[in-house]
Each structure stands twice: as C-alpha cells, then as structure tokens.
C-alpha cells in the first residue's frame, strides 16, 4: 500500500484549500490604511529623447498627491544586474545604468516615464493624461543582427556598441575546434530561433510600499519569488536603505515562472514614494502593463553545428548564439545565455569537444531574463534539434543515435565545466520507449493517414543543472550573490513545528511537501508541521525559489536544522530517561533507550525543552529551535527522455498533440503527485512555446502580441493527457535527501520533442521540411509545407 504520510507519499496540497476557496492572501488583497495609488505613465515609443516633461497641470488635478519623474530618482542607484560575465577578451560585460524612471531617454515601449500618486487609481490615470511630454524619436534597434552592425543606432549612447558581451565557453581554441569539424565524416548544421516569450503568471505583479515615520521603517509587499533578494538589491544598490529597517513580504504569489525573481523598478518606486508621499503607495499591474514591463524570456538566434565520425559518434559541437538582453540588464539576465546555457551544451552526450559562443545584445525591447528553465531550454532545444536533423540526414534512428552517444559513466566531467554526479540515460530512454508505446506507433500512424492526417513521432533527451547553486562555483563564474539557502525549525512546547524557510512557494506546493520531510524525520503527523515563507521579517536570509532549487537547497537546510533538533531532543530525552544520548533512538515520535523498554514521547521532550524543570541546564540551553544554512556541493542533474506524437492537418498546417510521454529521473521524490503536477505544468509551457506563444515586435519596437488577443497561451484543450513517469531514480549524491528538483524539467525537455515530431510528420508526408521556427503555428507549418 502506498504511504499516506511522509517522504514518498502523495497527500493532497494543503494550500489548495485556500487557493480554491477564495481564501488566499495575494498582494492585491492587501490594503493599507490611507494608501494612495500609483499609475505609471509608460512609453509608447521604443526609443526617444525626452526633451521635457511638464507635470504642472497634472500636479493640480483632483486627488493628486505627487508626480514623479526621472529627476526625482537622480540621487538613487539604478537597478543592479546580479551577474557579471567576463567576455572572451577578459573584459567585463557592458552594463548600462538602469533607472527607476527613464532619465532623459526612453529605451523600450513600457518603460516608466513618469508616475502619478493620487487618492484613487482613476485620479492618477486622469492626471497622467495631463502630463505633457516633448519627445524626439530615435531609430528603434530591434533586430539583433542589425543591432550588432557597425553603423547601428545605439540603445545606450554611453556604451561603445549594442554588444553586452561576446563570450566563449568550452574549448576556446577556434583552430582546434575547426580541425575537429574538418576531419568529421559528417557535419549537420542548423539555424534556429528560440522564440521570445512572456511568462504571464495568472497573478500580475503588485507592490505596496509603506513607511512608518515613528520607527523609520519600511515595508514592501510584493509579488516576489525571493523577498530577501529583493530587500538586498533594493536596499544596498537602489535606495541606499539599511536592510534592518526594511521588511519585504511576498505573501501568496500566483505563479512566477522566473518573471518574479527580478527586482523591478515598481518595487523600488513604491518603497521610495511611500516616504516621499507620507502615504502607503500601491501599484497593481494590469495585464496590458505586464506584457510590456515584466521581463520576457528566451529570444535567442542560434547556429549550431554537430560533427560526427564515420560510426556516428559525436566528435564536436559548436554553437553561435545571439541572445537578446532588451534595453537594460534585468537581475539575472546576463547569466541566462552564458552560464545557465553554455554549461548545458554537452547534454546527455559524451561529445569530447564543445565550443559555445554567445553574443548578448541590447535592443529597444523589454528586458529579457530567466523564464522557466532559463538557458537550459535554449541549450536543450538546439542540441536535440541538431541531433534529430543529423539522424535524418544519416538515415539513422534518432533514438539509436542518441543511445550510442550517451554518457554512461558517472561522475562525468563535461567539456563545459560541469561534473554530472549521477544519472542513467539508458534507463530513462528504456522507460520512455515503454511509456510512449513506441511499438504501437506504426498502427497509430496508419490510422491517422486513413483520416487524411500526417502523424509524427519525436523524441529528445534533456539534462539540466539545477538545485542552484554552489556559491563558490557561481561566484567564480560571476554571480554577485551566494546561492545557499536557510531554514529555521522552531518546535513549540506542545510539539508542533513551524519551519521558517528561505524558499518561496508560488505554486510549487511547498506547504505540503516540506512538512512531509520534517514529519517523516521525527515520526509525527504532518498536520503538526507548517512552513512559514515569504517574509524577511520572519524567515532567515534565504535566496528564494527558482532554478528548481527549493527542495534540493532549502530542503537540505531544513533537513540539517531538523537533524540539529533531533540531536538536541535526544539529549533531553536521555536526561529524562537517565540514559546516555548515544543510546537514544527516535522512531514514530517516540524516544527509546536502545535495548530497554524505556520511552518518552516527542511531546514530553518538547514540553521539557520549554518547561525545563527537570533539565540539564548546565549542559544544554532550554528551548528547541535550530537554524541551518546549506550551500550545495554541486548542482543537481535531473535528466530524462521525452516523446511527443503529433497529428498535422495537411490542409491547414494545424498541429495537434496526440500523446506526450515523459520519463524523468529526479532522484528521490518527496511527493509524487506534486512532481507530476510540476511536470504537467512544465510540459504545458513547453508545448506553449513550441506551438503557440510568441512575443513579436515590429521594426519600430512595438510589441505586436501585447494582449491575449494576439499572444496565444496554451489552454487545456491544446495539451494532451500526459504519460509521466519518474520511477527511474538515481539519487543525487551530495544532498541529504538525494533529491534533484523537478520544477523546470517539463519546460526544458518538451519543445524539441514537439518540433521533432512535426518534422517527422511532414517528412512522412513526403515534404522536405527540415526545420520550422517556433511557434509552429498553423500558418507557419502550412507555409513550410507549401514553401
């Protein structure tokens, strides 16, 4: 019988009760006495000089508290970039100032030009319309290749060009790499686009800044995945505030997908304006604002080349990518196309030579940063697409070609700086072949053909580095932050437990899965354990949730803190039973003395800790509360193999996903149901990227898909019922739970499988199509078929 509690069980998500019954507490649900509202006047042109801003009429409008422009922020810092990448010549990345409000130049549609704080939102909007802007339009820089041309207009006049950095990773020796290609038996080349996306979490961003004059303290409620990071960046780099005077609270957050990692101008604005106005200041993003102010994701243009020997062994891989940074460097923007992408280029394969070149480019578009998977989907997509293309060119079976080149011995040092600790790619591929029912494909294809449809099968593998990250390693690579995490386990006198965690749950189910671990370790009922997260005033300094790191990093801190609790509790139990603490065993919430029938219950020990009448006070402090900080020794390496089966309607080009199978290796698993859900969500987003989503700009820098009328989000009927399997488990070797993380896998592993399947379908119908850029909309597929 499956367990109903503890590690490996699938209790229902306890937080869903409040989410599904309207009892959640999201930032917009919070209203502070006397709060005013801010409306941001946002640029509707992509690139212009601001000659003047006249706010005098706006200032006298009804209800207006204060009008802000860039000049009000001249004394504060810009929004910092959290990662400094060193280019191929040893120079630092070009790093422009990123102002809270545009300071003389507009650099993207959606940039804040002025802000009006008023008693009501409508009054603020009315007043914003009375602001007079005198602009001189400048040519918009949108296309990356054009942006890198000699004579291109510059997004930032004070930089030397629109190039942020030109970075090389893996084998830096161009001649050696070229030699490997020259001696190859076969070279497959593919040029592709990794389409730009808008994360679109269900809850748009919201911020409420408060200032208490009596104590000189600030509180910022914000929709963040990492409140401590926001506090640090905002205090130390932007506003120059003492951290201990600032509390950042991220209450229930309705999805982030990366877009809520970053420190945004609106957060700093509301905090700053609260003091300037003597009022709390609230901002709630509209969906329209979200499209032009939330950091976008992906947007890479790549050429990838794969060299193979006469036996189809991969001998070398070379990639050249242009990655869009947008107009400014968002918090983790520069790490995504470099270290989160280049380090993954070896994939699941023992290719001996890998060279990755990335040029990051400034354009007059919304800043681009991490989106679910962040760099790893871009790496996986190009690698798994070029392998598929190679298989077709060589007439090889795509699965056999992959199997032949799999890494099979661990630990494995890749040519791109990572050491994979464990994995079993053969096992996940075996599992995939079973789950996807490859044997039945031919019959299914015949059935589709009878109905006039083309059917295709596509597979891919993925490897990701998550559990981000060992601080010393990322520090060497340019991270300007540590990436440990922290947990405090506070046991109450009656034995119930609050765990204060640095991770933040915005859909991941931490409130269910984290208590499963602690309850399991002690042997008490899960209902006795709660987690507290999302409040710098309550939780220890943790780094938040992204990069599939929560259970692997923060969960490890929680295990360490719980181990300290158990160790101390054993000492108390030993004292109560007059035994040596070395002889104490804890099982099912009972402390026993080995080899005797003596026992005391968990609750007796916890009560004793807080009512220390009979207590070894000279040796042991009273109380039962422990904190641990955990910094991982390595990344974790979830991996897997995915298969997609599509039907294509040759008349319209419409692709429907008929089957999708995922075989993942996430190491040990705390709550299989939650893991299924994480994979389902990731697959939905991956399928969204592959078939539907596209943030498209026109040549003037206007976002064409700036609402749900034109930006196609995946809906329930766009995705199939998934077959998800995660029974292949090679536990992580370096964290106490043996876990690897599962949050991004689905989004990383699915786009290539979809595209590979569509190409397979088209080729089965006699079309010589070798590639279509995502999203594979009906129009694009039809055009490719009829091109």
């Amino acid at each position, binding site marked *: 019988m499956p367990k109903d509690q503890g590690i490996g069980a699938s209790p229902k998500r306890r937080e869903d009760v409040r989410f599904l019954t309207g009892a959640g507490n999201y930032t917009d649900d919070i209203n502070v006495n006397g709060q005013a509202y801010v409306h941001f006047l946002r640029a509707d042109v992509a690139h212009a000089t601001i000659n003047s801003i006249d706010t005098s009429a706006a200032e006298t409008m009804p209800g207006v508290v204060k009008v802000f422009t860039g000049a009000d922020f001249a004394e504060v810092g810009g929004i910092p970039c959290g990662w400094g990448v060193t280019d191929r010549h040893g120079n630092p990345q070009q790093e422009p100032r990123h102002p809270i409000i545009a300071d003389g130049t507009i650099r993207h549609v959606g940039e804040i030009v002025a802000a009006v704080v008023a008693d009501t939102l*409508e009054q603020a*909007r009315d007043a914003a*319309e009375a602001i007079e802007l005198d602009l001189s339009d400048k040519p918009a820089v949108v296309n990356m290749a054009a942006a890198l041309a000699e004579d291109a207009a510059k997004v930032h006049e004070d930089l030397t060009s629109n190039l942020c950095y030109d970075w090389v990773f893996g084998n830096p020796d161009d001649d050696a790499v070229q030699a490997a290609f020259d001696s190859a038996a076969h070279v497959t080349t593919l040029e592709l686009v990794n389409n730009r996306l808008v994360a679109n979490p269900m809850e748009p961003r919201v911020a409420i800044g408060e200032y208490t004059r009596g104590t000189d303290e600030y509180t910022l409620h914000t929709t963040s995945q990492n409140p401590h990071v926001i506090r640090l960046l905002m205090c130390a780099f932007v506003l120059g505030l003492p951290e201990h005077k600032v509390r950042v609270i991220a209450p229930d957050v309705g999805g982030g997908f990366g877009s809520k990692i970053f420190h945004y101008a609106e957060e700093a604005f509301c905090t700053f304006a609260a003091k300037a106005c003597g009022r709390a200041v609230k901002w709630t993003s509209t969906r*329209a604002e979200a499209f032009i102010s939330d950091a976008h994701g992906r947007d890479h243009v790549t050429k990838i080349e794969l060299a193979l020997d006469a036996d189809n062994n991969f001998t070398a891989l070379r990639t050249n990518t242009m990655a869009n940074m947008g107009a400014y460097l968002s918090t983790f923007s520069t790490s995504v196309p470099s270290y989160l992408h280049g380090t993954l280029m070896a994939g699941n394969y023992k290719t001996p030579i890998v060279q990755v070149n990335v040029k990051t480019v400034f354009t007059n578009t919304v800043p681009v940063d991490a989106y679910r998977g962040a760099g790893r989907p871009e790496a996986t997509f190009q690698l798994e697409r070029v392998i598929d293309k190679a298989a077709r060119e060589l007439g090889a079976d795509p699965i056999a070609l992959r199997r032949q080149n799999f890494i099979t011995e661990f630990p494995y040092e890749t040519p791109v700086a990572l050491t994979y600790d464990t994995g079993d790619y053969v096992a996940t591929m075996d599992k995939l072949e079973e789950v996807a029912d490859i044997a039945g494909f031919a019959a299914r294809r015949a059935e589709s053909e009878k109905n006039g449809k083309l059917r295709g099968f596509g597979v891919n593998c993925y490897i990701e580095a998550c559990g981000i990250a060992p601080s010393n390693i990322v520090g060497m690579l340019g991270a300007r932050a540590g990436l440990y995490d922290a947990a405090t386990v506070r046991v109450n006198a009656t034995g119930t437990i609050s765990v204060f965690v640095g991770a933040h749950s915005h859909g991941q189910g931490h409130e269910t899965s984290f208590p499963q671990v602690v309850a399991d370790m002690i042997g008490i009922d899960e209902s006795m354990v709660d987690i507290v997260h999302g409040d710098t005033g309550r939780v220890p300094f943790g780094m938040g949730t992204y990069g599939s790191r929560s259970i692997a990093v923060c969960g490890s801190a929680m295990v360490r803190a719980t181990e300290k609790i158990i160790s101390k509790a054993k000492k108390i139990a030993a004292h109560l039973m007059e035994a040596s603490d070395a002889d104490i065993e804890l099982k099912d919430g009972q402390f026993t003395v080995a080899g005797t029938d003596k026992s005391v219950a968990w609750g007796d020990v916890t009560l004793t800790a807080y009512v220390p009448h009979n207590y070894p006070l000279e040796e042991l402090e009273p109380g039962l509360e422990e904190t641990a900080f955990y910094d991982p020794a390595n990344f974790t390496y979830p991996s897997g193999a995915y298969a997609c089966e599509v039907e294509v309607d040759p*008349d*319209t*080009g*419409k692709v429907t996903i008929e089957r999708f199978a995922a075989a993942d290796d996430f190491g040990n698993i705390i709550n299989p149901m939650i893991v299924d859900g994480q994979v389902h969500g990731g697959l939905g987003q991956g399928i969204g990227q592959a*078939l*539907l989503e*596209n943030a*498209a700009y026109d040549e003037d820098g206007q976002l*064409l*898909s700036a609402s*749900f*009328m*034109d*930006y*196609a*989000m995946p809906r329930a009927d766009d995705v199939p019922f998934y077959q998800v399997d995660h029974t292949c488990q090679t536990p992580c070797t370096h964290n106490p739970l043996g876990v690897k993380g599962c949050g991004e896998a689905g989004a990383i592993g699915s786009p290539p499988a979809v595209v590979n399947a569509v190409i397979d379908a088209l080729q089965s119908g006699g079309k010589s199509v070798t590639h279509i850029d995502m999203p594979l*909309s*009906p*129009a694009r597929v*039809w*055009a490719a078929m009829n091109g």
Partner: protein
Amino acid sequence: MYEFEFEKPSTVAEAVAALADEDAQALGGGQTLIPTLKQRLAMPSKLVSLTGIAQLKELSDNAGMLTIGGAVTHAEAAEAAAGPYPALADLASHIGDPAVRNRGTIGGSLANNDPAACYPAAALGSGATIVTSRREITADDYFRGLFETALEEGEIITAVRFPVPQKANYQKFEQPASRFALVGVFVAKYAAGVRVAVTGASEEGVFRWREAEAALDASFAPDALDGLSLDAGGMIGDLHGTKEYRAHLAAVVTRWAVAAAA
C-alpha cells in the same frame, strides 16, 4: 475608464431618446465595449443599456423565419435556434467562452462588425434582415467594411430576422490566441440559391464568395469547389497568417462547411 452617465431604459423609444445626447452610446453585453472603456480607448458621455428592454429580448420562429431580439445573448440565441436553425445555434454556442456567451449579444456583435466575428457570417450567409429602431436593412446592404455598418448615430438593432435555409453550416478555423475566426465560413442552401459568407479573411470584412455560391448552386457538394480559389490580394495578413494563408484557408473551410451541411 472615464466617468459616464448610465441609463437602463425599458422601451426602445426611451433608449432612442437617451441616445440622442451627444456622445451617448448603446451598451449591449459589454464584451467589446467594456474592455475598450477600461483601456480608456472610448469616452462616451453616457451608456444606454439595452438589456432591460423586453422587446429586444424577444425570440420568435414563424413560417421559416427565425427572429432574434437585438439584446438576446449568444447563449440564449443558441438555445432558441437549436430546433429551427441548428447551424446558427452551433455558431452562437461557439462564440468565445461561456462568460462571453452569457453576456454578449447579437445586436452588439453585428453593430461592432469585428472582421473576425462569427455572427456577421451568419447574417450575410442567411441573407438576414437587420431590424433597427428606424428601418429594416438587408444583410447585403448592412456590412460596410472593418467595424463599419449601415447603422447611423443612435440607431439601435432591435432584432435580426433569419430566413431558415434547407441546409446550412458554419465552420471556423480559430486564431490561436483570441480564438476568433482566423477564417470562418457560413454556407446556407435556400430554394433561391446557395449563399457563402466568409469572415475573418478580408480587409473589407465579411463578404460573399460569389464563385463558390454559383458552383454550389450547380451542385451542393465539396467537389463542386474544386479548382476555385480566392485572390490573396484583399486578404488580411498579420502575425497569425499571411494573405495567402487566409485565402487558402477560406477555400478549405468552405469545403468543410459544405461537407458538414450536405
């Protein structure tokens, strides 16, 4: 939104009077107008809600003529047409999502005349009559291009009269994001001839595809359309499909509609 006055009259006469004010605007289900107001893209001085007018909610099915009141919602129309005019019911029941169908009205849809909307195809394809507070307008005279109609200032659609055909069908190929029609085709076979109305495709809005009608008059079967194609010239080309793609789709979707109707 900007501030506006709000009236909810109970007769057409009162509504017409209320709409006489400068910058007053009729409000149907608000599914198009309210989002426009929220974005501050319109600034009416007054909104005159039509949903409280009993006459505009009337439905009748008489001697092959289905009449739908101007303020009847898509959901109500779908229910009313299910027996007498299943193709129309099917169209109405696939507009937007349940929230849109429970509020959006036929009058609002036809007054708005979005080039990708469904009802214009049904009205033109059925040779319907648009009954207004002032006159009756045949569908052939009513649609005048993108968001343009024969309606004058303050004129209200009070009802739409649909002659019920022998056979009919509507097929839409959805735009992936909005799920409006990327191309939608309404085909109806009457004793007097076949009508084919195409929405979503043209820069001129909904239009009749006369060559297809003539071919289907001769033989009401998909094969009759063999070799027929639309000129890509006047088609819409955008993010979701080129002109050529829309022209191609119109022919494909017409075949689907004929196959389903025949």
